[in-house]
């Protein structure tokens, strides 16, 4: 592999990017061209070609393992006719990058991909003009290849991009009519490419936020209250008198700071603190009923056609069920970390945040600074899969840096901080009613669900709460109402209502595939209940109610690769000894507007102890035009494993207002022996828009797994995670209820 740009150099200053890109022999070029502040919509805000001919793609989108560095580089390399290795996507920096919004919602390729493509195509057209002029030939006489404009049929007559534009600005607006390469001409995109950051991470490099060490840096630990909303009542400084560490206290924010990291860790461990009682929250048993009783801020009707009330009355058979999904944590392997420094009137915060620009605003408001006085620089972090503790740690660290200025401060959360104090995937509950005709078709669907009103206003950082300074809350994200409707247009009467409630016990956060994981679990499990009541095959039943050809295609593909045996569920009777095996399917069109996924899972159930296992997962996914098939595959695999983990036993527990699941023993993740074989089929749509793949496949895992367990045993799981106790209870229930 060719030498890559130095990430470490790229993170230093706005100008550092260009130090890294190199401007040999042209020391004045940067100052003269003011490359560091192009208008936010210019080609220059997204595409920079350095003096050595390398290309940097600039965006506020962040890489945390989902492979966007590769995909965005592929798009730019393709349109610019540059070798893949010559294109880099540097870390976002609010001083340097355009604000393309936060990273999430599987939206990076969908939103930024086309913008990068148009910017790169515009740049290429400009380079063609410059090159033809330089070479003294017409536009028609030149072509681009390998980072240069060259005369067709005379490849030795060439003008490298470095000479044409290197280190200077294009000063162009992206041209929506710029010629974009058709799929047939692609050489770099549309095929697997290695992720440029991976090898460094595997060899002890990798620009993780955890690895950032600034000269003179202090180490901090914030001591979070064990109870929700509690604050320090008294602090016994003498309890750590022997440790070279100092206590920093500002309002509710309590921290210890030391020169050596271990001294900060043990000071935080040993410091004696009395806490106030904090706020009362519903118990684990009450949390879903509490959600139903919580005042509603808004109501979304996500589908409304026909008259479900009448249709239910007239239906040959009616079913009712309630589905609920547990409170979960993001489970980041590397707890949140940040480094901050206040120097010369400016605060620089280094963070693994998904949302550098929004974090800048939150920190500025919390600390009473203006936005221009705050700079946020992104570094890789441990996979966050939603808004975990990274922004909290960053804002806390920023507050400490103000107290300890001008020294830089590194704040590392401990495991119990991450499990205990990061925001949570909220409890979600849905009540459903369905009716089927005598012929076994869905006639009516009526549901209502309860989700957090917003992860916007409710998601202030811990620092904002502890310092009692409003920060405006997090940016809009989450869309917890999404996919609360059945995806089947063949249901003549359907109404689905989502109640947006004012608060949940813990700060509600978006967590991979927010709302869709929980809603699709309810919708696609209940669809399976209706299919079973109608004695129809679950795949055939879905196809019979779905007209969308792309939706049908993923369902058919998943069934085909899984070698689906067509028959109604449950299988009944079969199986050896105490084990039963079954298969289940689930389908989603993400947000009803983009990526299509279907999944078949084969499951095994131990009737004695309620232990369950997925042995195989087959995914068929259509996310439109494919840029990096290996990236899609990798994300689908990750969605399967992570969501199975969430289905098996992941659930936050609490007593009073104290979370008790503060480590991996009490909040266990899936382990290697439990991971199924996974097969992924991608349905490439070269002529369609590109859509994301980071989240959609996660939505179908819980219902496919639950439906497979039903197929194996006749036991219906309506509460996730599917703990052995819940499986056993469902098995007992199934044994008492005659099969339809």
């Amino acid at each position, binding site marked *: 592999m060719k030498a890559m740009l130095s990430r470490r150099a790229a993170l230093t200053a706005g100008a550092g990017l260009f130090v890294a890109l190199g401007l040999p022999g042209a020391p004045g070029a940067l100052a003269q061209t003011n490359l560091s502040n192009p208008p936010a919509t210019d080609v220059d805000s997204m595409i920079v070609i350095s003096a050595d001919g390398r290309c940097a793609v600039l965006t506020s989108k962040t890489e*945390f*393992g*989902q*492979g966007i560095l590769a995909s965005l580089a592929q798009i730019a390399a393709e349109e610019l006719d540059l070798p893949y290795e010559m294109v880099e996507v540097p870390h976002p920096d609010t001083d340097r990058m355009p604000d393309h919004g936060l990273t999430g919602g599987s939206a990076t390729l969908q939103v930024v991909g086309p913008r990068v493509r148009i910017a790169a195509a515009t740049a290429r057209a400009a380079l063609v003009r410059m090159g033809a002029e330089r070479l003294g030939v017409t536009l028609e006489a030149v072509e681009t290849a390998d980072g240069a404009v060259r005369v067709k049929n005379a490849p030795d007559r060439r003008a490298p991009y470095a000479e044409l534009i290197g280190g200077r600005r294009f000063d162009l607006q992206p041209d929506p009519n710029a010629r974009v390469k058709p799929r047939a001409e692609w050489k770099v995109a549309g095929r697997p490419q*290695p*992720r440029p*950051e*991976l*090898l*460094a*991470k*595997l*060899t*002890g*490099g*990798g620009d*993780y936020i*955890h*690895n950032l*060490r600034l000269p003179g840096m202090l180490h901090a630990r914030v001591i979070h209250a064990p109870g929700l909303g509690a604050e320090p009542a008294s602090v016994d400084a003498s309890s750590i008198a022997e*440790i070279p560490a100092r206590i920093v206290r500002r309002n509710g924010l309590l921290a210890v700071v030391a020169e*050596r*990291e*271990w*001294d900060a*860790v*043990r000071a935080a461990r040993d410091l004696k603190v009395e806490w106030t009682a904090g706020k009362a929250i519903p118990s684990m048993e009450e949390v879903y009923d509490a959600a139903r009783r919580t005042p509603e801020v808004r109501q979304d009707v996500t589908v409304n056609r026909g008259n479900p009330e009448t249709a239910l009355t007239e239906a040959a058979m009616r079913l009712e069920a309630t589905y609920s999904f547990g409170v979960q944590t993001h*489970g*980041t*392997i*590397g*707890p949140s970390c940040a480094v901050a420094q206040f120097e010369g009137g400016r605060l620089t915060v280094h963070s693994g945040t998904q949302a550098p620009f929004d974090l800048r605003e939150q920190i500025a408001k919390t600390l009473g600074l203006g936005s221009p006085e705050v700079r946020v620089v992104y570094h*890789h*972090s*441990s*996979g966050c*899969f939603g808004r975990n503790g990274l922004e909290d740690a960053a804002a806390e660290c920023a507050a400490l840096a103000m107290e300890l200025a001008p020294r830089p401060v590194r704040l*590392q959360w*401990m*495991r119990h901080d991450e499990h205990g104090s990061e925001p949570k995937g909220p409890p979600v509950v849905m009540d459903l009613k369905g009716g089927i005709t005598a012929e076994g078709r869905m006639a009516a669907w009526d549901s209502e669900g309860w989700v957090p009103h917003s992860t916007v206003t409710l998601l202030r950082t811990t620092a904002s709460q502890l310092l009692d300074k409003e920060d405006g809350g997090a940016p809009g994200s989450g869309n917890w109402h999404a996919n609360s409707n059945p995806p089947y247009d063949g249901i003549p009467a359907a109404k689905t209502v989502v109640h947006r409630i004012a608060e949940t016990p813990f700060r509600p956060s978006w967590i991979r595939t927010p709302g869709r994981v929980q809603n699709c679990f309810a919708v696609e499990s209940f669809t399976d209940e209706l299919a079973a009541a109608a004695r129809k095959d679950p795949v055939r039943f879905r196809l019979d109610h779905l007209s969308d050809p792309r939706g049908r295609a993923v369902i058919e593909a998943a069934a085909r690769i899984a070698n689906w045996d067509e028959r109604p569920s449950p299988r009944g009777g079969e199986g050896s000894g105490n084990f039963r095996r079954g298969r289940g399917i689930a389908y989603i069109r993400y947000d009803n507007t983009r990526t299509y996924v279907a999944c078949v899972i084969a499951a095994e159930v131990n009737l004695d102890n309620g232990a369950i296992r997925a042995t195989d997962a087959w995914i068929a996914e259509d996310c439109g035009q494919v840029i990096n098939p*290996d990236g899609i595959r*990798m994300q689908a*695999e*990750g*969605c*399967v*494993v*992570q969501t199975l*983990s969430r289905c098996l036993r992941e659930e936050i527990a609490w007593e009073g207002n104290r979370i008790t699941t503060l*480590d*991996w*023993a009490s909040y266990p*993740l899936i*382990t*290697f*022996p439990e*991971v199924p*074989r*996974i097969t992924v089929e991608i349905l490439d749509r070269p002529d369609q828009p590109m859509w994301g793949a980071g989240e959609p496949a996660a939505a179908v895992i819980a219902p496919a797994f639950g439906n497979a367990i039903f197929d194996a045993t006749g036991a219906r799981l309506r509460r996730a995670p599917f703990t052995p106790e819940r499986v056993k209870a469902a098995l007992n229930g199934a044994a008492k209820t005659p099969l339809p």
Partner: protein
Amino acid sequence: MPIRFTLNGKPVEAEPAASDMPLLYLLREEPFALNGPRFGCGLAQCGACTVLIDGRAVRSCSYPAEAVEGQAVMTLEGLGTAANPHPLQAAFHAEGAGQCGYCTNGMIMQSADLLSQNRRPSEDEIKEALAQNLCRCGGHNRMVAAVRRAAAQMAG
């Protein structure tokens, strides 16, 4: 009390901050400033901090620094470099085994221990060897494939 040990093949000397200071903190602070072993839980539950001590995988977050006196410590950096990666590192790269990559230190170091004991482990033996190492991104199957690939290459 300063302690002496071998770090990635070189004799070194260091002074722990306290008798209960885990090895991880010593390795990550100056002058060593190593990045391979990563802090994950501090409870020996996830494996992100794994190093080899006298050839065997040890969770450095829960291993007292003082205890490495006279021992040989190997970290991910000592195993190989980006320019000259160990077969395990090269295989993880080739298989795309790692998304955020944070856990991969532990996966690779634990696998290095496994391959030193069992040159051609079966798929189930690899899964068993890594059963106490946590990955959140779901890179498991690719990691198993990577260990098999490395084993095949190392066995020649």
